[in-house]
């Protein structure tokens, strides 16, 4: 099972929007609406941000939104804030009771 492909880095100024793509195949992202996103500040525990492609767990700001088209899922951060600077990982169900993560994207707030 190959890792899902994410851009290595994206950046934006405070208040702007950034979008992170997560590209897989029809065997994972494209085959199931079971994509999730995780925020990771180095040295801290990763944080659960999005599930079922576009749903936010309780407590996650509505600045974070998810979507999917075909084999590519996306995470958009609107109204970028300094504390959003972190690494972001997508994850998808990959069939046969397995999961696959993305390669990770570093978000930099300029």
């Amino acid at each position: 099972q190959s890792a899902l492909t994410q851009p290595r880095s994206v950046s934006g100024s405070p208040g702007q929007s950034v979008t992170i793509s997560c590209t897989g195949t029809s065997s994972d992202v494209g085959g199931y609406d079971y994509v999730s996103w995780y925020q990771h500040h180095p040295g801290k525990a990763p944080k659960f941000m999005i599930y079922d492609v576009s749903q936010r767990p309780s407590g996650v700001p509505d600045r974070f939104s998810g979507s999917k088209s075909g084999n590519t899922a996306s995470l958009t951060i609107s109204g970028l804030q300094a504390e959003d600077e972190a690494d972001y990982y997508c994850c998808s169900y990959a069939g046969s009771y397995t999961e696959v993560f993305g390669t990770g994207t570093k978000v930099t707030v300029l």
Partner: protein
Amino acid sequence: QVQLQQSGPGLVKSSQTLSLTCDISGDSVSSNSAAWNWIRQSPSRGLEWLGRTYYRSRWYTDFAGSVSSRISINPDTSKNQVSLQVNSVTPEDTAVYYCARGYSYGQSGRHYFDSWGLGILVTVSS
């Protein structure tokens, strides 16, 4: 609030066995609603899901195909822990290892990783 803490040796020699434990508080390893996952992170591979164990009238385990021949994940109900063993390690197994709870969300009922430990760095020396 679920808290997870990984522990184990930080240095393992090539060809030996890596053994880690995850102490669970705020939930039960035997919960019928949760699954207990091991995930690792390395600079070369990013996050990699390794496997999970969960209890649904009996114990189940699922493993990633890339490591399924070398790993075992076992619950310890007496200590409310879950353990990971990786056999025949190589320097490629050097990573930060995380324990994470999988919990059901939304109408899909799929499990997502909603609580994570801080992780433990394990270095495999050649």
